[in-house]
């Protein structure tokens, strides 16, 4: 299958500072590609390069098998996006804003389509209201409607849940999932939350300090990574003695006063719990964390 989007050796320099360093990746039709990285990792810069908002210092971008630099307008006619905050003309109504952007979309977009999109994002009854009075969540949903105006084949969403309250995050995630499931859109989504990418994306690229560190199928990357399981117990020493006598002896990776950690498969957790309870060791909590999660947490904390 030919990629819908192909970025090769992207570099972006701001003076002597290299914001993006030799990043390459592909997006295939139907993909939801998660672009994961901490703040300042180079996600937004990369997405802006994909939209020609920023000129790459080096590298090539091909979208729909065309070079972005030479076929900018024809490529953008098939792309929808939200880059960072969903900013609109606050002095205009939601509908007027969409009408304005529709006129720039190189398509004859009827008002009925605009109303349908407002309905789709749950703003059907707020179309006549000025955007100035909208909450961040409502603007984000209006941003998604704006991104869908031209019925795009590819949607780029840069941190679409940032700044939203928990309810807003759920709503926007549901909208993205509906785009994927009901409209079969190809989506590139940036986020600094692994859990978000895990929920929405099927493929991901982890980026930090401008470099792409890991990329592949989300399921493969997460399942392949070993699981670290922490057991909080009342008697660590007794638990350790029991485990040392079992087939799991080599799995123990570390222990603290009330906790020991093991590198095991998901399927082994019930056996460890049984081993402890059979030996009258009280278990207060069991917490699993994947190696990739640890790796990402380590990235984001530095």
């Amino acid at each position, binding site marked *: 299958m030919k990629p819908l989007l192909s970025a090769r050796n992207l570099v972006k320099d701001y003076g002597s500072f290299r914001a993006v360093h030799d990043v390459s990746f592909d997006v295939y039709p139907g993909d939801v590609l998660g672009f994961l990285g901490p703040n300042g990792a180079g996600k937004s810069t990369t997405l802006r390069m994909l939209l020609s*908002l920023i000129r790459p210092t080096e590298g090539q971008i091909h979208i729909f098998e065309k070079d972005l630099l030479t076929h900018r307008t024809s490529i953008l006619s098939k792309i929808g996006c939200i880059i960072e905050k969903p900013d609109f003309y606050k002095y205009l109504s939601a509908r007027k804003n969409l009408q304005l952007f529709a006129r720039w979309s190189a398509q004859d977009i009827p008002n009925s389509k605009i109303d349908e999109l407002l309905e789709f994002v749950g703003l059907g009854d707020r179309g006549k209201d000025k955007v100035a009075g909208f909450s961040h969540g409502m603007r984000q949903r209006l941003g998604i409607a704006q991104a869908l105006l031209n019925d795009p084949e590819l949607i780029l969403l840069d941190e679409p849940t940032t700044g939203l309250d928990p309810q807003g995050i759920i709503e926007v995630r549901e909208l993205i999932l509906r785009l994927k499931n009901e409209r079969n859109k190809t989506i590139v989504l940036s986020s600094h939350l692994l859990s978000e990418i895990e929920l929405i994306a099927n493929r991901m690229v982890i980026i930090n300090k401008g470099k792409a560190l890991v990329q592949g199928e989300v399921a493969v990357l997460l399942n392949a990574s070993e699981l670290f399981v922490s057991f909080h117990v009342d008697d660590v020493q007794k638990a350790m003695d029991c485990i040392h006598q079992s087939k799991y002896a080599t799995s123990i990776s570390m222990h603290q006063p009330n906790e020991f950690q093991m590198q095991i498969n998901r399927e082994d957790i019930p056996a460890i719990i049984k081993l402890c309870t059979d030996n009258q060791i009280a278990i207060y909590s069991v917490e699993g964390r994947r190696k990739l999660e640890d790796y990402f947490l380590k990235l984001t904390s530095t």
Partner: protein
Amino acid sequence: MWRNSLYNELIKITARPRSFLGVAAITLIIVLIQVAMKMDGLSYIQFITAPIEQNLIIEGNILNGNLMTFIILQMLLIHIPLLVAFITGDLISGEAAMGTLRILLTKPVSRANIYWSKYLAGALYTILLLLWIAILAWGGGHLLFGTGDLIILNSDGIVILQAHDIFWRLSAALLQATLALLTISTLSIFFSCFADNSIGPIVSTMGVVILFTLVGSLDVPIFTYIRPLLFTTHMAAWRLWFNDPVPYADIAFSSVILVLHIIILAGLGLWKFNRKDILS
């Protein structure tokens, strides 16, 4: 697409209250001047004409609509550049500050299209602003003061223009003033391409106007070579249309300088806008 873009830009300008603040202020000022002159204009005229009345007998309706139009234009055309910069300086940088430029430039429209549609919308606003001043000054002036010959005092002496000889001069002067104000709007749009905030281009434009005006007014030998090339030297060239005979060569030179400024600044603005990284 050009029509759509221009239409969008005009919608944005007309939807913003700030676009009408300048118009409202100008309307208020013109009406105030006209009412004040209606109430006590004759004593003002006598004060102005006192030195020449020793040698000349002036008869007829001196304080007329034509003189009022000239006075108002002379007073306002110094301040309008600020109002023009206030709107046009915001066209690109204001959108960068709002974040809408980011969305706008992800639409399938060339940057040149966006730039020129903004430029045209700014130019239209400038022309309409000037036209409004002219209509209000001329229409209101004639309604309140009637018509008559125009007597102008300038550095070369007195110019008396007959009533029937004024309208075409006023129209030509407005075109000349339009050229001067378009230079201001082009300069502020040029600065707007570099900034990500609304204030910077407005302050920069007025800074350049003040600096060039100072350079043009200083009697330093080196500046005498520069002075004719500064656009500020030609901002008041519209007044030349009220000279008798009309100095067409001077007007043509002023027009060429202003047009050159417009072409160069608009070209440089487009060059910058095409290469601008959108980081806001």
